């Protein structure tokens, strides 16, 4: 393959994003960040980027240095507004236009995710996670979201999350979210360094959608903590074009975070 798995993940996600969409990226998610910025340059001049509470359109820029912190116009100099000025949750009715990305310390086959911690007892966790941030509300309301994992391991992809901070397809079924009264479209794909997974139409359980170049289905099965639905024929994730990779490396990820440098 002509690129790293993280670069492939970013390119795959960028092709998913449509012009005009509102794309929200939270803290510590370098792959989605790169995906959104790549899509913005390649085919999304009318996209609205919402990075760490900073809303902007920066299609006109040759490249976009990431906002390193906080809401100060000297730092986030292309902001058009900041996080709805303290009313960030007052307009969730319109979040069906938004696309969101979520990580997790655990993910189950129904796309439920956990940022709270690992252990049986919440009062004394074996591993304490960072907390839910705003993901329960976002995953409830956004039009669709993508689960993006830095590692594909059986410790992360588990049969059952110890805690659920964002509900995906709950205990399964295409009507699972409707039954809970949750309006958003739910998780569409789970993207990892090994493969892309989607959810079966009826059961809403995770299914192998495509393998990244060079990855075998056995490798995926071995590193997944639950039994994944694997169709007879699994395509290879389409590698980046020369142009995508060039834009990614020279205009988006100039410092090489996705190249591991």
């Amino acid at each position: 393959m002509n690129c790293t798995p993280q670069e492939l993940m970013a390119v795959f996600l960028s092709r998913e994003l449509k012009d005009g969409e509102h794309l929200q990226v939270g803290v510590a998610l370098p792959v989605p960040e790169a995906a959104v910025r790549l899509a913005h340059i390649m085919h999304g001049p009318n996209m609205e980027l919402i990075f760490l509470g900073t809303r902007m359109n920066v299609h006109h820029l040759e490249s976009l240095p990431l906002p390193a912190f906080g809401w100060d116009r000297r730092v986030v100099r292309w902001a058009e507004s900041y996080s709805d000025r303290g009313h960030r949750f007052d307009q969730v009715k319109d979040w069906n236009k938004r696309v969101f990305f979520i990580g997790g310390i655990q993910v189950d086959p129904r796309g439920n995710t956990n940022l709270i911690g690992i252990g049986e007892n919440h009062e004394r966790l074996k591993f304490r996670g960072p907390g839910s941030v705003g993901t329960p509300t976002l995953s409830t309301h956004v039009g669709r979201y993508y689960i993006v994992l830095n590692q594909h391991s059986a410790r992360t992809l588990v049969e059952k999350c110890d805690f659920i901070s964002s509900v995906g397809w709950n205990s399964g079924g295409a009507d699972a979210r409707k039954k809970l009264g949750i309006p958003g479209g739910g998780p569409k794909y789970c993207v990892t360094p090994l493969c892309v997974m989607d959810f079966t139409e009826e059961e809403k359980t995770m299914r192998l959608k495509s393998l990244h170049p060079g990855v075998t289905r056995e490798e995926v099965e071995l590193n997944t903590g639950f039994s994944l639905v694997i169709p007879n024929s699994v395509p290879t994730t389409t590698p980046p074009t020369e142009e995508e990779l060039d834009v990614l490396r020279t205009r988006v990820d100039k410092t090489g975070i996705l190249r591991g440098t």
Partner: protein
Amino acid sequence: MIARISHGMTLAFGEPAPMGFIRQIIRNKIRDLTVIASGMSLDMLIAGGCVKKVISYYAGGGFGVAVAPSFRRACESGELDVWECEEGILTTGLEAAGKALPYLPWRGGVGTSLPKINKDLKLIEDPIEGQVLLAVPAIKPDIAFLHAAESDAYGNVQHYEGPGWLDLFLYRAAKATIVQVEKVVSNEDVRANPWATTIAGADGIVRMPYGAHPFYSRGYYVQDTSFLRSYIDVAKDQGEQLEDFLTRYFFSPTSHEEYLEEVGIKRLLSLYEY
């Protein structure tokens, strides 16, 4: 300001964190607090031994550390109570307090583990449409501590270019609000632009230039990234190095000015350009 605080109170901290107040709280060894705070400033309060319970939505670390280190240690050892929530639930509970209601409903969190691990969050059936929602009880801080650019002597506070996302929720919910400001200005300055007044009549203001250091202050200085990185570096191991850091910056300086002297004028003056 410190005279108003007693052990066991519920204190809320705005964004950027009012670090001058936080340093005073740590220095004065205030104990058993319930705090509404997040990220690294929360971590410092925990490292300082002040916190019994945290109303927590996010405690990330940064600089290669996924979880704030002192928060993580205190949770895993079982010494910290966590009122598990998230941003939408937090602001809903604060709004309920501001509106003098026992609770307000919220949808984010329905279907998750939050109502199971936080028994104060109740699933209810709404009487209008019969939907299942979370009832979030009013969250009532005893004091909200905030950082802003300016205020006059009457507590007319003006955040430079507008408040951050959480400050006004905390102000409306808290029984009292005390604001540290970069600058105390005249009442005429405030009257020149009353639309810019974000908090009309804080209960107390404290003049504290560089008071948000090592965080940023809109209109003044930017974040001191290398200082924050050095905190994470020493906090990672939760050992002697962290103790030394706390002694140097939190316990030894007897005033805000002494803290600034310890940080040094060179470092402070380097924070105006980005």
